[in-house]
């Protein structure tokens, strides 16, 4: 049953993998290279994509845990929601634009426009940094009106959730910077599921989605 789920073919055939092998840049771990050429079982999901989905599942569970805590606390009798600093709207827009920028970057690359790719990729990264700056500004604004971490339960959750989210954004920024520095420009030889740019973009969209969800949870649904 499972054999069909992971798309394996007949076992006794000499087979080539069903996905294009990744061309690893020079200097990669030789053992990993040896493994990827050595094994011949055809799998539907290349390693990097499987790892990414596992990471996303883990992060999702983290925010699920926080969400359940929020729901429990919100049911308390002393719940008084704080206002949403208006800059959060701008931050949300910045993050959505950064996701868009990454997608435009990928399209540019597909059409061979290297300069366009790097430009839009950098824009996405920059917008992510701008998002973080905006989040910091939101924290400062709340502190200025006297809402600190322990002041109100709603405020506590805002600070905590936006902080944990920001940590994951920082992780995403580091990943994007790493991709940029390694100059993984040429997409043509790489299968989408193993392409580092694509994988980073998926992580980034996930982080954007989490923020949209958190904003909704904290300030729309309250």
């Amino acid at each position, binding site marked *: 049953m499972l054999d069909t789920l992971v798309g394996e073919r007949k076992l006794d055939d000499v087979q080539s993998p069903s996905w294009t092998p990744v061309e690893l840049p020079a200097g990669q771990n030789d053992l990993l290279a040896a493994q990827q050429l050595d094994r011949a079982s055809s799998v539907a999901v290349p390693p990097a994509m499987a790892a990414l989905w596992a990471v996303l599942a883990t992060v999702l*569970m983290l925010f699920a845990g926080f969400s359940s805590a929020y729901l429990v606390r919100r049911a308390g009798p002393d*719940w008084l929601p704080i206002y949403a600093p208006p800059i959060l709207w701008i931050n949300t827009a910045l993050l959505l634009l950064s996701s868009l920028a990454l997608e435009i970057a990928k399209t540019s690359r597909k059409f061979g426009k290297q300069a366009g790719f790097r430009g839009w990729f950098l824009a996405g990264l920059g917008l992510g940094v701008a998002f973080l700056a905006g989040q910091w500004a939101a924290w400062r604004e709340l502190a200025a009106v006297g809402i600190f*971490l322990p002041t109100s339960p709603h405020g506590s959750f805002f600070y905590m959730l936006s902080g944990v989210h920001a940590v994951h954004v920082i992780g995403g920024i580091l990943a994007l910077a790493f991709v940029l520095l390694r100059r993984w420009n040429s997409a043509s030889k790489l299968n989408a599921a193993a392409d580092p740019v694509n994988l980073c973009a998926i992580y980034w969209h996930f982080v954007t989605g989490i923020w949209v969800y958190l904003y909704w949870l904290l300030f729309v649904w309250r």
Partner: protein
Amino acid sequence: MSDAHLSEVVHEPQSFIRRYIFSQDHKVIGLQYFLTAVFVSLVAGGLAMLIRMQLAWPTATWPLLQKVFPDGFSGGIMKPEFYLSIVTMHGTLMVFFVISYALLGGFGNYLIPLQIGARDMAYPFLNMLSYWVALLATVVMLGSFYVEGGAAAAGWTSYPPLSAVPEAVPGSAMGQTLWLLGMALFIVSFTMGGLNYFVTILNLRARGMSWMRLPLTIWSLFLATVIGLLAFPPLTAAAIMLLMDRHGGTSFYLPAGLFFGKKLLAHQGGTPLLWQHLFWFLGHPEVYVLILPPLGMTFDVLAAFTRKPVFGYRMTVYSFWTIGALSMIVWGHHMYVSGMSPYIGEFFSVGTLLITIPSAIIGFNLLASLWGGSLRFTTPMLFALGVLALFGLGGFGGLFLGTPTSDIFLHDTYFVVGHFHYMIGGVTLFGMFAGLYFWYPKFFGRMMNETLGKIHFWLTFVPFYFVFLWMHFLGLGGMPRRYYAFNEYQFLSALAGQNLYISIAAFILGAAQLLFLFNFLWGIWKGRKASENPWEATSLEWTAPSPPPHGNWPGRTPTVHRWAYEYGVEAGDRDYLPQSAAGRSASA
């Protein structure tokens, strides 16, 4: 790639540091995890001996111990707060820093690539990082003994308010903060390792190694990894919130109206129940993360020493899956007496009792694997049989604890302590020993001493049964857990003295482990050299040299032609066929 040899593509590290310290080889990392687990087990086992000493002789004075732990004793008698610290750290260290490190970090790292026919894990650098973060976590945890106030004292379950109010007990000061940091680092390490195992098993299986040809060790490690990856994050969330309550002034877990002495605490609006839910959301799947690998390993060991295939391989795999899924929705059975609605209690109870079905299937399959076999009573086989005995009997305790009506009486009594020690202390420990004795020749290229091993088994098995079976009866008699002494309770006057006999058995149990340590070390230097496959087993790791070189197989990685349990077949002068043996029919 067909004729490329190992040396052409694999660059073996040359320096001592890169080979044995900062190594990316899964085997070295696995042994590093083992080493750490053994060291911590000495600490945690020592703590257990202290617990038993206190319970055996609650009124005795210990001037020597007072010299070693000046803050823990007063007038030679152990302080209650110190007892709580010992109980807390014994549990925490054993669960996370011994069993998880040994089973998942040690056996997982060492065996996964070998048993699936891969040269190493998918991400060797991440693997190395996971060990060093794990070591850092261990240092932080052990370091918490030395800060002011001593180690955390809120139980391994770390319930607020005790864990959330720094002035509550001495251990709730810096010790509790370090506990939380140590746990956070542990979870980071586990996540990194878990990702590696998940991707490796998914993608790096050798040619011909389909899912249903995997040894049950791999299945159990795979599912334990999946459960762990999904279950740990809510504990991360909970720990972050607890840190904020402690140091940020928030009130996630602390309600209004809490007094410490005469001082009213400023918190309001939180609830300790939130912590309980989040903790046990991890806590329950965590025990299945710990128990699945030894069960999987026991199957492999049994097959080799009964010379027949495991019984019900497919059903066991499905049972592992079912246990994994169900384990995520039964956490409330740790909280029946917390005031939850009885209807919610019923929901958790139904789920808990449903888990007995796949557990019983696994237990039955273990037992049926023995039927009609040609039994070889080697030391690993004895420990594997011990796993059966402990799993069977200990599992029954779960029925009583899983039913709210009986749990109302049994919760927080020694019945619980007896039950979980059978499962986490018994099944996992005996599974670990079975695995260590079984795979020792592969790890070190030498054999351990059989006689010493058998003595170790009996001196472990008999006292273990004695200690923890008796605790069930103490619990039925109403003896509560986490109490530092029982001599002053009239309703326990008949039972309190029995702690002495339990302690004596526990001391024998503890001392017997020194035998194992000696045998372990002796074998490395003086043991008989082991062949590639001394147990005549079928899985792929036995086709690699003992110990395997960097890259595991000198030539090509094996191609798999059959499942992992081709025992009892006619194959020339052998009664088994390795997984890599070619040919469609049984005879070679």
